[in-house]
């Protein structure tokens, strides 16, 4: 498999949000605006790349019986690291995402990639896979956040274009998240995945 394909695979064919339907909880909960979706995506990307690399490096020596606990400990370490760094250097982003940062530990995408890819491939390939899937997740979350922000608050990346602040509020709340996700999924599978 070419290195380039490793990345595009995560973006399109194995897009974690629109195709694999993994990590739905942060997807639905944090995408109230494009910026929130983007930051959540980047946070997951960071953890995904590092944990993929670490796990592919240690996988050969980890006995099968304990591989899940070992992977979870590694992932949790990176997530906590990220949490501390965000708390220290980007407190405002940390506040918005709050609870969902520690929840990256149990994000199926991260453990899924560790199990399905990183444990069977080299460090470089795993890093590329992490970048691909992470970017796919980031892109999906940003698009979803953008759509919800445009419809729900009438703004783009925080820039308000309708004046006043009365958008269609339902789109900022949970029902709107499901609706937008559903329609985006349809569009994605119809147009992007096919080509």
């Amino acid at each position: 498999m070419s290195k380039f394909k490793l990345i595009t695979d995560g973006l399109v064919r194995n897009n974690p949000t629109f195709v694999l339907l993994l990590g739905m909880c942060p997807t639905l909960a944090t995408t109230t605006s494009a910026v929130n979706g983007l930051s959540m995506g980047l946070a997951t990307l960071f953890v995904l790349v590092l944990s993929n690399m670490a796990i592919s490096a240690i996988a050969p020596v980890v006995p099968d019986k304990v591989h899940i606990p070992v992977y979870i400990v590694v992932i949790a370490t990176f997530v906590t690291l990220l949490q501390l760094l965000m708390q220290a250097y980007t407190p405002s982003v940390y506040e918005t995402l709050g609870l969902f940062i520690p929840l990256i530990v149990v994000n199926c995408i991260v453990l899924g990639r560790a199990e399905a890819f990183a444990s069977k491939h080299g460090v470089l390939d795993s890093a590329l896979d992490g970048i691909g899937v992470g970017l796919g997740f980031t892109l999906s979350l940003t698009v979803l956040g953008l759509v919800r922000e445009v419809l729900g608050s009438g703004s783009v990346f925080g820039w308000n274009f309708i004046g006043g602040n009365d958008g269609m509020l339902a789109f900022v709340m949970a029902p709107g998240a499901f609706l937008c996700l559903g329609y985006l999924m349809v569009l994605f599978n119809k147009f992007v995945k096919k080509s």
Partner: protein
Amino acid sequence: MVLVLGLTCLLCSAVLGGAYVLTKEPIAAAAAQKTSRAIAQVLPSFEKASERDFVQVYGKDFPYYAAFDAQGKLVGYAIESSVVGFGGPLTLMVGITFQRVVCNTSVLSHSETPGLGAKCSADPKFTSQWQGFDPSVKKLTVTKDGGDVDAITASTITSRAYALAVENALAAFDELLKEKEVSHE
């Protein structure tokens, strides 16, 4: 098996321990900066703010900061007041000048609905009414309940909670003044 698991845990905890020590100071600094910014926002200009202290009202501890001008005269108190909002705890910093007038308020943390109750921290239509809110002239309940607080559209519960938080802060303020008088005698 035990060795691998043990080593992994040991290594991970070492990394986290190191990261904790390294980020401890920036985290504390960020939190302190946030607090001092909130105090500066809710009170008229002052020279020096006291350390965080507590005053007890209704059996609850209210953290507060006293602000003094260059002559060491009391400018007012910034009081942290926490109530239950619509989606969870709503914590405000309420600045009250020594004339017992609310100078300004600032939301420290909230979990209100985005687009509705969350406007309590940003929408100037709602937030500006707290600047110079004088509880001796205006009634501290939302208009729906016969008061003078303009509620956020479709977020009466959040607005009520906000008014209650300000009211509690005023009660804490009265308690502080009482304590102050006692110590002066």
